[in-house]
């Protein structure tokens, strides 16, 4: 067996993007990613990594390779059609219309979330879904990033999962980093050192 020694061997499991809905009807927001061998494990890993704190109603996981992502810069360069090499959506397949969820990022303020759900469109490909989104969804603030997520690539938690996957987090105490008063403590220690 020959081994390509030039390319680093990626031993990671595939990456799944994680979307969290904090209450019924609220838009989903991308909160990060997990690695997993398959969607079911991805959903469980997403729960363990991102639901330690309360307020999750539903989680979605989506294979990262299923998501079409475009930045404002890419769109300005006319790259709606071009695809990055590590992205897999089949550009040539134009079949029946499918449903796509549209996500975008319009603010830099919410650092815990990347893109947030805006709506959905029926389209024949991710690229046409993106074009439709750009036409239909004019907002006051321009989007920095667009994500186009095929609805059939989503694995969602179920209503009956709420009590076992999300609600126990309500009973758990947790501390924000600021509660440890680390900086105050460091200043006191420094002051002691100076006085000594």
């Amino acid at each position, binding site marked *: 067996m020959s081994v390509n020694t030039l390319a680093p061997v990626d031993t990671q499991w595939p990456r799944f993007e994680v979307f969290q809905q904090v209450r019924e009807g609220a838009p989903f927001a991308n909160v990060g990613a997990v690695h997993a061998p398959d969607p079911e494990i991805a959903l*469980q890993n997403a729960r363990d990594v991102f639901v330690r704190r309360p307020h999750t109603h539903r989680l979605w996981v989506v294979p990262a390779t299923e998501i079409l992502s475009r930045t404002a810069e890419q769109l300005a360069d006319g790259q709606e059609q071009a695809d990055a090499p590590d992205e897999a959506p089949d550009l040539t397949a134009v079949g029946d219309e499918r449903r796509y969820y549209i996500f975008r990022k319009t603010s830099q303020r919410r650092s815990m979330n990347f893109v947030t759900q805006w709506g959905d469109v029926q389209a024949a490909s991710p690229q046409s879904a993106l074009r439709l989104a750009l036409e239909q969804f004019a907002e006051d603030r321009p989007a920095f990033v667009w994500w186009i997520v095929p609805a059939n690539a989503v694995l969602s938690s179920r209503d009956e999962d709420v009590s076992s*996957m999300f609600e126990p987090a309500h009973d758990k105490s947790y501390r924000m980093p600021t509660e440890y008063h680390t900086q105050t403590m460091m200043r006191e220690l420094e002051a002691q050192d100076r006085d000594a």
Partner: protein
Amino acid sequence: MPELSVNGPTTLEPDIQQAMTEKLLAMGDDELILAHRNSEWCGHAPILEEDIAFANIAQDELGHAGLWYGLLQALDGSDPDQLVFFRDADAFRNARMLELPNGDWAFSMLRQYLFDSYEMVTLEALAGSSFRPLADAAEKARREEIYHLRHTQAWVRRLGLGTDESRRRMHAALDQLWPHSGQLFAPLTEEERLVHATISPAPEEQARRWREIVIPFLQTCDLQVDEQMKDQPAGRDVHTEHLLGLVAELQQVARTDPEASW
């Protein structure tokens, strides 16, 4: 026998209380010792996400230990911190399969699955306990166990049906763990008093229900239980040599400065 009810008393007759304290101690020790073993994976699990998941499960089990020790404290005034950090190893009443060293990932996953199934069967029965504080605590723990079981089932299935290596490791784990599993259901002294008062379920009935769930599931994972495998001796006062080291590590910091406040 009276009907099970969650509206039962919150205090116990003296003769039942003794049996109840023994039961709660065994339940708390099971969770504590397994939580400690699981916590040893922290930073060493095969992949980051699973490291987090298993640490999460370890914390949940520790929380369950807190539930049972808390009920014990309410009954006889014993201090959970004293029980955990200043009790000698030979006074622990956990089942032996939980104190065994972690071995490989297959062993730890299978052990967690076997215990999660045991805990689920137990908690479902205890949710109908006539001793209300126990029923309430069981219901609280049960929600988390549903998720634990989902996670460990998913992994046992994938490892059992996975590669030659994962299957070989799972078979080895099953051979090592199964003979210890009967001890989970070994009756405690005077446990029949609790059963008669519909406070806790009959151990032999629990064992039957557990086997009805676990053996078919393992079969779907290509893991055959050898029913001829001989059970290890049953008493919870008999431990392996591994408990001593575990308890020493668990208590090391607290015993270094018993007066320290945390």
